[in-house]
């Protein structure tokens, strides 16, 4: 009796999991992530393939550190520096679009543009004498470099909110803070996210350079390969960095569809 009543539900449940599994199988994001993990696992045992590709090299596979560790370090470095860049860029962007901050806009723009004009390598070179080798100079350089796209996204997003929306909101008695949080933020979110997206994706590529100052990242095989004329190392590092960037970009695209407020 009880079982009979449950059966339709169970059928639904199976249908749901089957549909879920099928959706996952067709999902390019899942495929890309699987490919990255496969590369991490496969590259250390791929001596044969790279021997065939680069017969002149004695050790064609990068084995100083496991790729999984490099990947993790790379992701942590990008996550931390992007977090700082997003926080700084967003706050500055909100600030310069307020009435009290409008006079600061040109200065903030100039500063952010400056942060982007300096090549990250130069920032690294300047940062090393100050904070020493390792993760810190990398974090500073990457965070500075990532601010501009976020700032631009924030400002463009907030400016894209029709002036009439704010005018009416204030005219009806909404407080400026509430208008920002309930109207401007959700309306600016898609453009802001596009800024964050390019900041983070660029950051993933740039983080590879951080290996020059001793941070362990997916750039390490590339740097070692460049200095030792080992093209196979460069290829292995580049493959992983590229895969990570593509996956992140796809994930952001997924997120962008969620925050879009217009059908």
């Amino acid at each position, binding site marked *: 009796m009880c079982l009979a009543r449950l059966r339709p539900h169970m059928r639904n449940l199976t249908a749901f999991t089957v549909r879920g599994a099928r959706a996952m199988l067709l999902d390019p994001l899942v495929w890309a992530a699987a490919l990255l993990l496969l590369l991490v696992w496969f590259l250390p045992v791929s001596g044969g393939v790279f021997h065939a590709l680069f017969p002149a090299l004695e050790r064609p596979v990068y084995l100083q550190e496991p790729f999984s560790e490099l990947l993790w370090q790379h992701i942590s470095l990008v996550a931390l520096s992007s977090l700082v860049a997003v926080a700084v860029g967003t706050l500055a962007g909100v600030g310069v679009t307020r009435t009290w901050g409008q006079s600061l806009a040109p200065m903030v723009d100039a500063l952010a543009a400056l942060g982007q004009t300096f090549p990250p390598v130069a920032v690294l070179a300047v940062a090393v004498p100050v904070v020493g080798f390792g993760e810190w100079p990398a974090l500073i350089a990457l965070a500075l470099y990532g601010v501009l796209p976020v700032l631009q996204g924030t400002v463009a997003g907030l400016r894209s909110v029709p002036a009439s929306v704010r005018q*009416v909101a204030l005219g009806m008695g909404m407080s400026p803070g509430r208008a920002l949080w309930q109207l401007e933020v959700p309306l600016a979110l898609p453009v802001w996210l596009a800024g964050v997206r390019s900041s983070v994706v660029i950051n993933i590529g740039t983080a590879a350079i951080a290996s020059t100052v001793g941070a362990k990242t997916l750039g390490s095989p590339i740097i070692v390969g460049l200095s030792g004329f080992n093209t196979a190392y460069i290829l292995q590092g580049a493959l992983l960095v590229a895969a990570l960037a593509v996956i992140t970009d796809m994930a952001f695209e997924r997120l962008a569809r969620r925050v879009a407020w*217009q059908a």
Partner: protein
Amino acid sequence: MITFENVRKSYGQQCVVRDLNLHIQRGELVALIGASGSGKSTILKMINRLEPHDTGRILFDSHEINSFNPRELRLRMGYAIQSVGLFPHWTVTRNIATVPTLMGWSKTRIGERVHALLTMLDLEPEMYGPRYPHQLSGGQQQRVGVARALAGDPDVLLMDEPFGALDPVTRASLQQELKRIHQMSGKTIVLVTHDIDEALLLATRVVLIDHGQVVQVGTPLDLLSQPANDFVADFVGRSDMGIKLLSLQQVRAFMRDEPPLPQAAIAIATTLREAVSTMVQNRTQSLNVQDPAGQHLGVLHAADVFGASAAPHA
């Protein structure tokens, strides 16, 4: 309800409103009319303190508006503008609920209010409530804008060229609707417009503004029959002032109590303008006047219309 006393407002060197004295009674529909840059919008925005005034006093409910908390002041005044400014990421229902939500009404009360407003503005609540602004036509958006401005049951409704961006047909129907809302609710409405026909049609009093100064204040009939100067005459449309005058007056005041003639008939609520048009079409000097049931009430003679259109029979 709202009083301006010697109000002045400048942007830097430029004086946009000078020595404004105006008293708006409760229940009036006042149209502020003038060319672009005449300062009419600024005057409206000074009422809800979106623009501060420099000198003079503005009284709301006999208190200086600066003695109110600006947000509380604004919650008591509905506000609708030409570009509507609907919040595009909110449904129609949530848009209309903005002010009631700010005022902390209960969910059920808000729901009932939104339902009533949508019904009043001819928008099927079940159909349009869950829609987003971009799924509505321009006229429907403006309706929602008006509903939103009315939602908190404000004492005063401020409207800044609310129908400016609409096509003539939609505009006319919304004008009728506003007139109906005004008559039904008895709310005080201040309407900014640059369309003299809109002002003459809707307003109980028209305030004509030029270069930040009031040129003439009066009923639509005053403005047409006794323009204060050439500027007013030009503004209300010198060449067809007579026609406009006709359209403001009804047959009722001009007909004679006479037995029916073998002529065409018109309804008692017809304007003189329509009556004259009917006369021209039928090549006649007189028309029978009927009540809505078709009962004969009297006769309208062209001589009466053209002889004394500015001063109707008592």
